[in-house]
């Protein structure tokens, strides 16, 4: 419980002082001390002359400061997070404890293979499970997040086409208009042009428009299935066939895999590869924005281009990195591999959590996870359909998208509704995404919310809809129950203050 008692003077009324407002010169703890003799070994002319004005605080002050700050956060540990596309499911504590074991937390990526057999076995098994879940043949655990997996795949597509002498010819990546922003951004980082294809009335890719966009210059298609409307691509195979017909490849954005565990394998649907956001599907904590991990699962024709090092298993059951993580066997070239996208082997600590979770679930648990995720979304939609307009009204998978366009006409935007949800005790849903839905409200309850919580959330949204009908303006100053009111984002961007200002 937080009461503002620090006694520190703040530059402005504030929820909590800044560290520099709490510090005092001459204060400080004693976490590490010594080494005075070191300075004799550092040439005078390279020694620091710039002042090192880090705040000087005691541990008690630091503990209170960050404890206070933490209590200002909404989190999975404190409430439901209906964020569409984010799969904010519960993050099991045992996963965190496993990752913190000294045998995992205190090992260095450059250690010899024989000193990290347990880590290599865990990574190897993680790859195998992911391959089975996605129906792919090979996996790289290097990408630190979904977006990096997308970029990695784009680089692999480039290498693939180049290996077939079509490198120069293929310049365009096709992206549906419902795609997440990282898709076109990743394609652009790959040096490619982006062609956007519109969606049809049922929320699928417009197959006609796709075919029209296809040609010999196409690198491939970036497909999210279920897509960001929460809808399963009804002609997914036809879509993949069309792309393959022109020699293109199909990238799977796996952000929505939480709908498909044990229900469908992207590999069976014609995709050439797919990434997994383990920080969504496999329950690793979002960490207030990160870290995540974005394993990239590919079919065999793309395997030669995967990042190095790969993790392999010897006949005798020992595990090793095909380049010992150091490319010793091949110090300069990397064969057909695109190389490395991560200085180490990826976000190991996140993968330990995901592996723990996957072993906890097992096959049946995976199936139930997606079944319950779909069940929860469809139940919520059933409860809300009467009071909100559904963007594309067909059976969704694990999430669905409403449009607040009708409410907007009455004077309350999706943003107003989002802020009103805070006063109802809930984190807002995703809003204004996907871009193709005006006043979009994207809702993903996940499988870990009890029915009574789903009902409370539905009741809240319905109360808000009623308020919009009777007094839409009353939403404009929501939230009122949060620690702080709406913030001035415009001047934040116009006159950016990006670090604390010292009283000089």
């Amino acid at each position: 419980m937080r009461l503002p008692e620090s006694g520190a003077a703040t530059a402005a009324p504030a929820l909590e002082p800044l560290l520099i407002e709490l510090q005092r010169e001459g204060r400080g703890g004693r976490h590490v001390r010594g080494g005075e003799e070191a300075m004799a070994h550092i040439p005078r002319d390279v020694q620091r002359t710039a002042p090192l004005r880090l705040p000087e605080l005691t541990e008690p002050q630091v503990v209170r400061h960050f404890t206070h700050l933490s209590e200002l956060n909404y989190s999975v540990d404190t409430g439901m997070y209906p964020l569409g596309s984010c799969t904010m499911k519960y993050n099991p504590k045992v996963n965190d404890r496993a990752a913190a074991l000294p045998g995992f937390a205190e090992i260095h990526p450059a250690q010899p293979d024989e000193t990290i057999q347990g880590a290599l076995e865990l990574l190897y098994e993680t790859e195998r499970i992911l391959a089975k879940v996605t129906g792919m043949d090979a996996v790289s655990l290097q990408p630190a997040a979904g977006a990096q997996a997308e970029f990695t795949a784009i680089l692999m597509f480039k290498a693939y086409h180049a290996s077939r002498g079509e490198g120069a010819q293929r310049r365009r990546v096709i992206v549906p208009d419902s795609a997440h922003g990282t898709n076109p951004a990743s394609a652009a980082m790959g040096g490619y042009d982006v062609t956007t294809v519109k969606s049809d009335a049922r929320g699928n890719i417009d197959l006609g428009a796709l075919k029209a966009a296809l040609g010999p210059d196409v690198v491939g298609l970036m497909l999210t299935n279920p897509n960001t409307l929460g809808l399963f691509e009804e002609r997914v195979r036809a879509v993949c066939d069309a792309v393959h017909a022109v020699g293109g490849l199909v990238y799977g954005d796996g952000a929505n895999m939480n709908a498909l565990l044990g229900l469908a394998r992207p590999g069976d649907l014609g995709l050439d590869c797919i990434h997994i956001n383990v920080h969504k599907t496999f329950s690793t904590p979002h960490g207030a924005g990160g870290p995540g991990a974005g394993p990239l699962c590919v079919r065999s024709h793309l395997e030669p281009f995967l990042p190095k090092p790969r993790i392999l298993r010897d006949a005798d059951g020992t595990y090793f990195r095909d380049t010992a993580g150091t490319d010793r066997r091949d110090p300069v070239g990397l064969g057909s591999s695109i190389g490395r996208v991560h200085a180490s082997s990826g976000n190991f600590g996140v993968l330990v959590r995901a592996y723990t979770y996957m072993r906890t679930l097992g096959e049946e648990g995976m199936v139930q996870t997606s079944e319950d995720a779909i069940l929860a979304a469809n139940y919520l939609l059933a409860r809300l359909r009467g009071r909100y307009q559904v963007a594309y009204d067909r059976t969704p998978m694990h999430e669905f998208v409403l449009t607040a366009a009708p409410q907007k006409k009455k004077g309350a935007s999706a943003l107003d509704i989002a802020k009103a949800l805070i006063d109802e005790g809930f984190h807002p849903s995703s809003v204004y995404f996907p871009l193709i839905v005006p006043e979009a409200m994207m809702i993903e309850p996940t499988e870990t919310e009890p029915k009574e919580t789903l009902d409370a959330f539905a009741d809240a949204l319905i109360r808000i809809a009623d308020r919009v009908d009777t007094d839409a303006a009353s939403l404009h100053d929501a939230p009122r129950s949060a620690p702080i009111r709406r913030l001035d984002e415009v001047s934040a961007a116009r006159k950016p203050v990006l670090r604390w200002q010292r009283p000089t």
Partner: protein
Amino acid sequence: MRRSNSNPYSPHTNEDRREMLAAIGVRSIDDLITAIPADARRPTLGLPAGMSEAEVQAHLESLAAKNRPASAGPFFLGGPVQRRYIPAAVPALAFRGEFLTAYTPYQPEVSQGTLQSVFEYQSLMSELLAMEIVNSSMYEGGSAVAEAAFMAVRVTGRKKVVIADSVYFQYRRVLRAYGRGPDLEIVEAAANDLASRVDGAACVIVQHPDAFGGIVDVRSLVDAAHVAGALLVQVTEPHACALLEPPGALGADIVAGEGQPLGIPMSYGGPHLGILACREALVRQMPGRIVGETRDVNGVRGFVNTLQTREQHIRREKATSNICTNEAIAAIVAAVYLALLGPEGLRSAARLGVARAHALAARLARIPGCAVANEGAYFDRFALRAPGGGFALGWRLLREAGIIAGDATLDHYPGRDDLIVQCTEMTTEAEMDAFVEAVTRIVASTREPVAAG
């Protein structure tokens, strides 16, 4: 009869499920997944059965027991990933559920904890690096270096990138892979040849202290780069910046590096913390999230993600990067770490590494045939040259003495066979004694044949 859930985190009873299906108006889940091609529906995955928490905990402990943690014996690996002391309050605070299980702070009213903490990270790092702008994190050091190069390419419109071969090999590898995207021309050269290669370059990338711990004259490279219209990207390490003139003071335009030593466990290389900083003028080319200060409608100070028009969710293919999920919690860890250590603590940790590296180097250099291979001054790691070569020595140190010695340069520098030995405040006298004793013994045994011949 109750069927217990196969997903132990699922709250639904069979009755809940019945009620929900009824409300939806279907008979079973299968009625909800008809869009999936029938022949692809409900495949068998072939996964093992689920476990109880007690079982999975035991399984993970058995895997962890097959690894040799740094704490289990003498340990001298380092470089981008370092064994550093982590104060007890760091995990106790940064891993509180309210931080660890929060989402990206897109809703600032319920995310002030995250936003102020990240703002403080940006501020602390800006003080440490003496740089004006620090973003809220990149994935890790390698991609931070690559994104720094991409920034320079966008700023200068040039596609040539010159990088010192004394930059961590892994970083150069990541840069090469990233460079395949925009087809960059990447030139690797010795630090003292860089100036001669700078023509037409978007940037010069140099590391100080370098992969061998060496002290590099960044200032003169800054001048050379600027004369050629290129930017200077410095790769550095946070602890070194406490004792060495910081990048901002040396004139660097962009700084990239690894923040793991700031309280983040080694964890086999991740998740870590990509540091990316730049001069104010370059802020609109900065990738990733940036937190800014503002006020609410009542004038109360608050924080928000700002300058978002740089980002993929707004600009899509025109964004400065595709990064979305970053390493926010690692930035919060670093903020807590820096707040706890303060200037004196950070200097002490850095000094202890330097002091021990030089003490160890002096003892090793006294062993017949051994020498420190660094030409000039070095910081908290050094290259050990030994008879028979560093690679063989490291191999024997592990087998014969259980010592995890430094990184073998042979792996990244064909023809150069040294061991890079890192010290930090965690390096103990006992570890150094064991190391010196073992090297002495091994070198002696290596030399015998020589003596014989």
